């Protein structure tokens, strides 16, 4: 029989304004096994905690129920308080009467009734709690960064500088990411490659960094401090040790039709290619889908011309398995597909392009060698219309509900650069709002308007109509003048919404990291833990967490690195004692629990079982407590109820349900 103390927190007015805390105390005192009940304005304060300690001492309590905020906020606080007062920390239960109750109710009677019910459920559970002891697990002092864009590179460099080994896994042939595709960066207009390339070189030459390009994460198992990751190193068909990066293979390759991904498909590349001149590693890959030799067995020209014999058509994908203590997701973004936006004629006219495509057109290494020209006829455009928020801030399901955040600034950048280089070209921007919160951002936008004469029109574009003469007729509205606008343009640039890289779903699933409805990875806390995933040991860097520009991405990348360093600096971590346990007398040995266990924590043994005097040898499940993370998948799969979760046993949960239904 437990002696239970119930402590009800006011949380200032957060709880007390909606829940009659005195009533909860009064009802708690009537519960079976409750020897002490009190309320206090801030239970989590020093004073509040010492009241718990005092009650434990005075009344000899064996179990504690704290009716307060979510256990995610202060469960650890109260467990520590209990430990200091001399009782096992796992004898503490939290009844969440804030997030689950006071914050979501308006009516005090209703909220109080619910708070009493939640308190009862917690009391019912504590009756069945048993003391648990936390174990320890070692920390593998190596980090994995998934994604080799600026976010991944910066995180890796910062971790490596602290003295820890880091691996970067990048699925394309080179690190660099989206930033390597940009021409200039706002608000300083410096060349993107000029500031990125040194970072890429620094990462590549860092003694603590290993880069796996043309590679993908295949499988993740384990848990914080002890992840095991399978990495698929896709066949490159080029020996990385031998290749000197001379590029002769690319000059000679006769297969010239594949679309150039790096230039957003605006031109073509060869079957053997490096995506761009500054690629790291400067070793080409062979695109097996378009290589004549790999497809038909005939050709072999690159092999013939390669001076060092680096070409190897027999290469196969290779899976390597590595151990990591922490994983950083830095998978970045892509622009959304515009199939649902027929009104902008993106698929009809070559002269309707996305901003990222314009970025490539403006770049000296791009499809037009940096000359601003129409892709349809090569002529210089004299009238350019920019359309903002294409797919961003969208209320229907064609686009995204969020603001892509970077578009206002890069459009100002594009407009300014065009007006600077081609002063006879008119630039018009259709916008909903111009959003420029950032250091030197609004000044930047105002320069575009005031110094460069960019014509901003508040209003949206309804339709872009390709004309017979090759021009584009843009139909829009000027909301400030309250009039319809029909404007002839030579080129239309769409500020296309960005979305998380589509691969992130797969990666999030492998990592058991949560994602929101827009596929952005969720933070552990939106304000206080913005670079950590709720999954321990998984951290977030860059746009995979939410839209951001380069300075923000770099700042977040550094923050994620600090969190990783903080973890890797520890030699051992306390493990969660709330792990699964199998009842040998009930276990059928059917293997279903092992099939569902995401951590590989369950094995089987042939054991001599003494079942109430009857001896038999049976195949039974055995849980490795160090590997088990207490997810409970096995307990709900087990048909005979042999698997149970310590601290969350079936009995405890049903006792809570019974208490709620009482």
């Amino acid at each position, binding site marked *: 029989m437990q002696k239970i103390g119930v402590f009800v927190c006011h949380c200032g007015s957060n709880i007390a304004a909606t829940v009659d805390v005195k009533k909860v105390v009064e009802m708690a005192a009537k519960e079976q096994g409750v020897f002490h009940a009190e309320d206090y304005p801030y239970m989590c304060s020093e004073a509040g905690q010492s009241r718990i300690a005092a009650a434990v001492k005075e009344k000899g309590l064996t179990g504690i129920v704290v009716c307060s905020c979510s256990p995610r906020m202060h469960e650890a606080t109260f467990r520590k308080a209990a430990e200091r007062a001399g009782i096992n920390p796992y004898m503490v239960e939290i009844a969440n009467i804030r997030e689950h109750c006071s914050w979501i109710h308006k009516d005090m009677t209703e909220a109080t009734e619910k708070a009493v019910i939640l308190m009862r459920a917690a009391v019912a559970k504590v009756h069945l709690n048993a003391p648990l002891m936390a174990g320890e697990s070692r920390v593998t002092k190596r980090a994995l960064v998934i994604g080799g864009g600026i976010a991944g590179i910066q995180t890796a460099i910062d971790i490596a500088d602290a003295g820890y080994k880091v691996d970067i896994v990048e699925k394309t042939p080179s690190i660099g990411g989206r930033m390597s595709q940009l021409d200039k960066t706002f608000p300083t207009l410096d060349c993107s490659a000029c500031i990125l390339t040194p970072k890429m070189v620094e990462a590549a030459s860092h003694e603590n960094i290993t880069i796996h390009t043309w590679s993908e994460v295949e499988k993740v198992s384990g848990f914080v401090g002890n992840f095991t990751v399978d990495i698929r190193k896709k066949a490159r068909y080029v020996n990385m040790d031998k290749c000197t990066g001379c590029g002769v293979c690319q000059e000679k390759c006769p297969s010239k039709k594949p679309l150039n991904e790096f230039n957003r498909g605006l031109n073509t590349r060869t079957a053997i290619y490096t995506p761009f001149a500054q690629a790291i590693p400067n070793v080409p890959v062979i695109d097996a889908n378009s290589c004549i030799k790999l497809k038909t067995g005939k050709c072999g020209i690159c092999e013939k011309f390669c001076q060092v014999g680096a070409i190897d058509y027999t290469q196969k994908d290779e899976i390597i398995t590595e151990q990591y203590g922490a994983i950083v997701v830095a998978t970045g973004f892509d622009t959304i597909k515009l199939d649902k936006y027929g009104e902008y004629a993106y698929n009809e006219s070559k002269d309707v392009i996305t901003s990222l495509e314009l970025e490539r057109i403006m770049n000296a290494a791009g499809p037009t060698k940096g000359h601003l020209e129409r892709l349809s006829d090569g002529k210089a455009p004299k009238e350019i219309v920019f359309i903002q928020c294409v797919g961003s801030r969208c209320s229907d399901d064609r686009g995204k509900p969020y603001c892509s955040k970077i578009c206002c600034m890069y459009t100002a950048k594009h407009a300014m650069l065009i007006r600077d280089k081609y002063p006879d070209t008119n630039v018009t921007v259709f916008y909903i709002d111009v959003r420029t919160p950032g250091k030197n951002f609004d000044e930047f936008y105002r320069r575009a308007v005031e110094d460069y004469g960019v014509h901003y029109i508040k209003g949206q574009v309804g339709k872009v109509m390709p004309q017979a003469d090759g021009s584009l007729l843009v139909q829009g509205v000027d909301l400030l003048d309250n009039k319809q606008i029909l404007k002839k343009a030579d080129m239309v640039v769409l500020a296309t919404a960005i979305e998380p890289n589509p691969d992130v779903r797969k990666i999030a699933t492998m990592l058991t990291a949560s994602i929101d409805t827009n596929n952005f990875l969720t933070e552990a806390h939106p304000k206080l833990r913005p670079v950590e995933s709720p999954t321990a040991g998984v951290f977030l860097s860059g746009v995979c967490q939410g839209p951001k520009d380069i300075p923000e991405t770099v700042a977040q990348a550094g923050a994620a690195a600090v969190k990783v360093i903080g973890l890797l600096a520890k030699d051992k971590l306390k493990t969660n004692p709330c792990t699964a346990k199998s009842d040998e*007398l009930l276990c059928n*040995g059917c293997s279903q629990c092992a*099939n569902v266990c995401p951590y590989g924590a369950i094995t089987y043994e042939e054991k001599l079982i003494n079942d109430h005097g009857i001896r038999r040898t049976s195949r039974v499940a055995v849980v490795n407590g160090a590997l088990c993370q207490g997810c409970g998948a096995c307990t709900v*799969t087990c048909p*005979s109820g042999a698997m149970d979760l310590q601290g969350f046993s079936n009995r405890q949960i049903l006792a809570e349900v019974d208490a709620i239904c009482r």
Partner: protein
Amino acid sequence: MQELIHRAKSLLESGEVSRVLGWKKGENVFDVEPAFFATAEELENFVYNGFCGANLSKYMIEASTWEGKTLVFLKPCDTYSFNQLCKEHRIDREKAYIIGVGCKGKLKAEKLGAENILDVQGAGYPDCSDTLKVTTLYGEQEVAYKDAMLERCHVCKGKEHQVYDELIGESVDTCDADRFAEVAKIEAMSPEEKFAFFQAELSKCIRCNACRNVCPACSCRKCIFDSTKFDSNQKANTTSFEEKMFHIIRAFHVAGRCTDCGECSRVCPQGIPLHLFNRKFIKDINNLYGEYQAGVDIDAKAPLTSFRTDDAEPGVGRG
């Protein structure tokens, strides 16, 4: 039948098997029951006729713990259950010598009654699969064979045995109905109609546990309904809630493992169509995770206990 007995006797005599698992004659022609036969003499009571619907796979769990091999007769649909139990490490394949027996659809005595054929003394089997000749107290009567078949035989999974050591006799695929038609009918009901339907069916339940005891998937060492460890232990059938929960919990426990052998409905003395629960699960699994038939491939990943990153994530629908 004589061929089966002959073969069983010779396997017993040669010492290849230590016992035979088959069906034993009862008081009436339709009162056939599963039985172990240890000697050639005992085999005099062996029977194989149209009423041998019982799936013998489950008995192999116990037989797997005994010394020596057991000769077991399995119909094509029984072999799915046998495989599923092998997959779950409950049956030791090495302890079984399987004779796959021919099956032309099995009969349900109650269906003869419904055709007004009473006091059955004998039934011709398996010489004819179109017309069944039945000997009764009142003389010979005839009935269309399919009108006397078990429900499950109308959705026969096929005449192929999934596992065997040797085959004796011919099998016929008796499938002539859509396996999920009944489920679809219930799915189309309004929530109120569904509730009324299940209420009406399940309130017939007398909690005799026959469905659980016969079910090859319900073969836990200790059932949660029998274990003192759980509050579900020995709950009397006192409320309509309890009787529903028993069947719903059972359906959840066998989901993804049920081979749709139909034994639950065959043995239910109250005639509750219990297989519909299981079939609803099978239909949903097929729709969400691709076609899957439990018991076909021992090494196949079961949809509910395996995980793919592109798995469907069904929400909880209303109604």
